């Protein structure tokens, strides 16, 4: 059996399989359950790696379910069969998701130890992972809807996992109502496009839209898609679920919820670029994305300023980071003509997409370090914490690295992607670059406050010592990735980000 060709389906088949195996075989013993969870994560990561290697060295392919040969051009297969797309963009998205899931999964062994019903936590974790992978890999709108709902249900289950706390259930209910409404509007938009063109496959749909670009129904469907995935990606007018969901979800689930929102942003870009292409009216959509981005950056960071809850503070920072990506991609869109993106648009696109994988990793690191602090001390209010650096040196270093990255301090990897964004956005309009810089500076102020309050100062005896080894290994893994991104930003952009942009069809 040729495993390489089947990698796209294994990437979401394996987490699904293990998600259902864990509650069954986990009954045997606790070790069995943990081993199965670890195997699920590692195997998924392995196949993400295999797919990435194949796509980046040989080239992408379309995986058609049930077809004897992969024939995406055959009309019968395209109309009826389920397709998955393995291209540069899928590689960027699945790599980000796999790295964060691996970090969060390794973290959860020690963090969740002692919780009741741990097999269900592992199950929900893997189901969320499968859902996000499905969302970014799928090649048709039907599947997109299914994986959208799988992700919503599983991630809401994760948020409400600590259901003995009322706040968790409240956050989960809020997110669930928004997600279900989002799913229904996604369905309306799918219906509109299907009613007009009679297909759900991205490729055939994009041919149809290219044939009649001016129709109102296209614009209506695009508007709804922007609304739905903008909500899931926590851009500002629709961000109110994010701080609650991030701060009330149980520890290791938080980075995973954050990655579902990043995954939705990936899907949004695939839909706008891949399905609509140049026919979406890049100027208008670009401007909308820029406005959303600026609002997210600014409001996210100003709300973070006034928070005293450590996790909630990082949650608002993560909302503001999403703004950078949307703004950069919006700027890239405005330069799009029939020949593709030109000039500074390419740089903006590189910056935006590089920031996505970067942000996924350092945000996860920052969340995990904050959760380690909460785990060790049992406190989450910054005014009560203090002096942790004496007893928790490793966690301090991990938090500092993540914090400096999110603030974009050179030479860390957050700086490399932000520099690309500043430069390109400046060429579009200087005021945007100034806003981006100001937001970075305020982010630094926020993160300084958090770091000084929690880690520096005299030892107050709030913790007995460092967190368990498993947590340190998980954070160490993400730190290693962060350092690789820091040392070789040019390599990452050339080898991973540029193929992703090429897969979107905006540069030759």
């Amino acid at each position, binding site marked *: 059996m040729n495993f390489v060709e089947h990698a796209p389906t294994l990437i979401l088949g394996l987490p699904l399989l293990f998600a259902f195996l864990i509650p069954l075989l986990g009954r045997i013993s606790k070790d069995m359950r943990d081993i199965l969870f670890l195997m699920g994560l590692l195997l998924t990561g392995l196949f993400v790696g295999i797919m990435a290697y194949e796509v980046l060295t040989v080239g992408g392919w379309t995986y058609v379910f049930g077809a004897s040969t992969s024939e995406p051009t055959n009309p019968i297969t395209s109309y009826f069969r389920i397709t998955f797309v393995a291209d540069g963009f899928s590689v960027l998205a699945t790599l980000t998701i796999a790295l964060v899931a691996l970090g969060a999964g390794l973290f959860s062994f020690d963090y969740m130890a002692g919780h009741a019903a741990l097999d269900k936590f592992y199950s929900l974790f893997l189901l969320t992972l499968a859902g996000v992978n499905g969302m970014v890999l799928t090649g048709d709108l039907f599947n997109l809807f299914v994986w959208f709902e799988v992700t919503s249900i599983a991630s809401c289950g994760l948020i409400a996992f600590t*259901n003995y706390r*009322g706040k968790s*259930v409240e956050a989960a209910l809020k997110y669930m109502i928004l997600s*279900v409404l989002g799913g229904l509007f996604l*369905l309306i938009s799918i219906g509109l496009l299907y*009613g007009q063109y009679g297909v759900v496959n991205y490729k055939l749909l994009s041919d149809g839209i290219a044939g009649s670009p001016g129709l109102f129904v296209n614009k209506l469907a695009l508007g709804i898609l922007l609304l739905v995935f903008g909500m899931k990606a926590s851009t500002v007018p629709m961000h109110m679920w994010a701080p609650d969901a991030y701060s009330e979800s149980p520890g290791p689930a938080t980075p995973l919820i954050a990655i579902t929102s990043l995954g939705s942003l990936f899907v949004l870009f695939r839909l706008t670029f891949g399905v609509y292409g140049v026919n979406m009216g890049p100027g208008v959509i670009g401007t909308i994305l820029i406005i959303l981005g600026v609002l997210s950056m600014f409001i996210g960071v100003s709300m973070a300023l006034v928070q005293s809850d450590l996790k909630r503070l990082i949650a608002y920072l993560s909302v503001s980071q999403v703004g950078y990506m949307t703004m950069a991609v919006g700027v890239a869109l405005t330069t799009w003509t029939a020949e593709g993106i030109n000039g500074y648009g390419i740089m903006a696109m590189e910056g935006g997409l590089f920031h996505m994988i970067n942000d996924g990793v350092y945000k996860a690191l920052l969340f995990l370090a904050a959760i380690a602090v909460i785990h060790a001390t049992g406190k989450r209010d910054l005014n009560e914490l203090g002096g942790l650096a004496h007893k928790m040196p490793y966690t301090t270093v991990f938090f500092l690295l993540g914090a400096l990255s999110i603030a974009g301090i050179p030479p860390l990897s957050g700086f490399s992607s932000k520099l690309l964004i500043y430069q390109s956005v400046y060429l579009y309009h200087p005021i945007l670059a100034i806003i981006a810089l100001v937001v970075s500076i305020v982010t630094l102020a926020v993160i300084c406050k958090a770091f000084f309050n929690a880690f520096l100062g005299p030892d107050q005896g709030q913790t007995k010592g460092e967190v368990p080894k498993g947590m340190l290994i998980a954070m160490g893994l993400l730190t290693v990735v962060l350092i690789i991104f820091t040392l070789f930003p040019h390599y990452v952009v050339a080898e991973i980000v540029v193929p992703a942009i090429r897969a979107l069809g905006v540069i030759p």
Partner: protein
Amino acid sequence: MISWFLHLPFLVVGILVAIGLYTVLFKNNLIKIIMGIAIIQNGVNLFLISLAYRKDGVAPIWTSAPDEFMVMPTPHALTLTSIVIGLATTALLLSFVMMIKRHYGTIDADKVRRCRE
């Protein structure tokens, strides 16, 4: 001749979605909000199934099919999926409301806001 009543389902869809949205946006009772979501769900399902209707089409069963128009089964499959998913989401939402009632002692959306403090 296009019979005008073929457009009637879409009018019903509009009314259902509007009623549902009104309920979700302006009601405070969490159960009523979920009922609103269920109404939108039904509206959307009706929308998909009305899109699928083709005049004089036959069911797409390939075995010994008559040589006529066959209807594409995609919207029907989508509607079925949506109904199943709708059941799951409604059940999950209602169980969340049960837990909210246990923790907060109320299902008034204005009073369930401990997260914002």
